[in-house]
């Protein structure tokens, strides 16, 4: 009997909780794992400032985020790529009209071991290295030695971005070492003399050397003036132009305070508005 009561009480409290939960202001952010750190950190800061609101950050991937937006199960869909035409038509059928807001920039640095003599590569060379055409540093003007290719795992947003920006959607060489986190890529490159890898701009440090691509240095300014080739905007999609709580949140992300967080998370902030 006693167990029955406990179970009943638990069930009731869950049920009551369900009723109570509906009252507070909530915002569900879903989507790109690339944007996860930004979404999480900005949501945290935003909630500190606005205690009444509850933001949940889910990170399935850009596809999942847009699918949730189509199904109206999220308010904001993070995406590291522009929405596809097919996705828009599905959304419109369901009465949802996805509109993008650019909230941050992603600059992907190609990094090598500091001992490596090579200081820059062309886009074509990077593509050659990652798709398998080039396997020795001598082929790109370095001292002879096998190139050890390091990559993020194929499910990451960074992989997706790099694949689109640097490899034109071509297949990565199968012997690339896949690391589960950008930090792991940086660590591997810093410990392996012949290695090459790619990481978000925020991961550049003394232990890894960022290469110039097409003779453009990888830094904020070159991302802003669009000369650095491996850069892309990151989006938050909403149903129609952002409004209400979603608008306030996105406004916060693009504000100076929000952009500071973006930079802290290893991304390139939007260029300062004059």
């Amino acid at each position, binding site marked *: 009997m006693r167990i029955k009561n406990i179970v009943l009480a638990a069930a009731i409290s869950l049920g009551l909780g369900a009723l109570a939960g509906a009252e507070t202001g909530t915002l569900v952010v879903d989507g790109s*794992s690339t944007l996860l750190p930004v979404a999480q950190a900005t949501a945290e800061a935003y909630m500190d400032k606005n205690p009444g609101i509850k933001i949940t950050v889910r*990170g*399935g*991937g*850009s*596809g*999942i985020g*847009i*699918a949730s937006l189509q199904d109206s199960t999220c308010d904001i869909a993070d995406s590291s790529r522009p929405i596809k035409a097919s*996705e828009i038509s599905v959304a419109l059928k369901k009465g949802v009209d996805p509109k993008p807001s650019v909230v941050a920039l992603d600059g992907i640095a190609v990094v090598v071991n500091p001992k490596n003599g090579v200081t820059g590569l062309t886009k074509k060379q990077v593509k050659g290295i990652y798709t398998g055409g080039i396997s020795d540093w001598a082929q790109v003007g370095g001292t002879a030695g096998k190139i*050890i290719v390091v990559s993020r*795992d*194929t*499910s990451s947003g960074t992989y*997706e971005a790099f*694949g689109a920006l640097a490899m034109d*959607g*071509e*297949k990565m060489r*199968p*012997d*690339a*070492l*896949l*690391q*589960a986190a950008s930090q792991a890529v940086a660590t*591997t490159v810093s410990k*392996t003399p012949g290695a090459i890898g790619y990481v978000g701009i925020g991961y550049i440090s003394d232990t890894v050397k960022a290469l110039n691509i097409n003779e453009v240095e990888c830094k904020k300014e070159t991302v802003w003036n669009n000369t650095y080739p491996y850069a892309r905007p990151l989006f938050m999609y909403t149903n129609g132009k952002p409004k209400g709580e979603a608008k306030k949140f996105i406004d916060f992300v693009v504000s100076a305070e929000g952009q500071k967080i973006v930079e802290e998370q290893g991304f390139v902030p939007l260029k300062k508005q004059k």
Partner: protein
Amino acid sequence: MGITDKIYKYIFMVIAFSSFIFLTGIIIVLFKEGLPVLSSTGIFSFLFGKSWYPTATPPEFGIFPLIMGSLIVTLGAMVVAVPVGIGSALYIHEIAGEKQKMFLKPVVELLGAIPSIIFGFFGMVIVAPFLQNLFNLSTGQCAFTGALILGVMAIPVLCSIAEDALSVVPKSYREASFALGANRWQTLWKVIMPAAGSGVSTAIILGISRVMGETMTVLLVTGGAAMMPKSIFDPVRPMTSTIAAEMGEAAVGGEHYHALFAIGLVLFLITLLMNMIAEYISRKYRMKLGMDV
């Protein structure tokens, strides 16, 4: 039987079919969601295609490297788990005294209760870096590490099932052997093991099936490269981790989404087959010993 008893009987019967319904539901879902990609890619090129590039344009859905990834990790795990698991079962059954048994059996069971995410975590932060340094590998996240961790995880399964099989071998076998002047080791090796043989092989098959389906551990420690492994130290991307890692990225209803369900289907059919073989063997074994089946 009274009318109330009859009503209850039918309600209970309907509920008792829930596991059948769930199993059927799983099969239906996997077929329904997995078939589209099988028909567009073709079963043969899906199963034996050598490139898995689900996000490339055009995407390629060949899961052979993933199947090989699962196989190499599973086989490796068995190399670890079979001797240690069965050896432990033999120790517990044959050498351990009552007191040791009272301690060892629960401990083995506890080892089996540790969640796979913890094994994966342990493998990722401790074992992989350690092996990387030890063997001077380019990455510690490879098939070998996965096999090692999964092998450890399979020890309790193998040990407890094998121990059960050993314990139902009739005592008279052992006594007969002792009476003929055999020592304990000879009795164990030549009489008890053969008698428990099919029970032990059931343990191995179920262990394989369990390891094959393990997800979080391989997701964290095997490196995730969808290529044909050339050596045990190559990173691999087993089927389970492919599903877990990519389901979030795949657009719902898209080809990639269906491909992941199709992998689930392949995985399910493999484990189903394993379980059926195990069940068949253990049935025969119990019949041989004259127990009810």
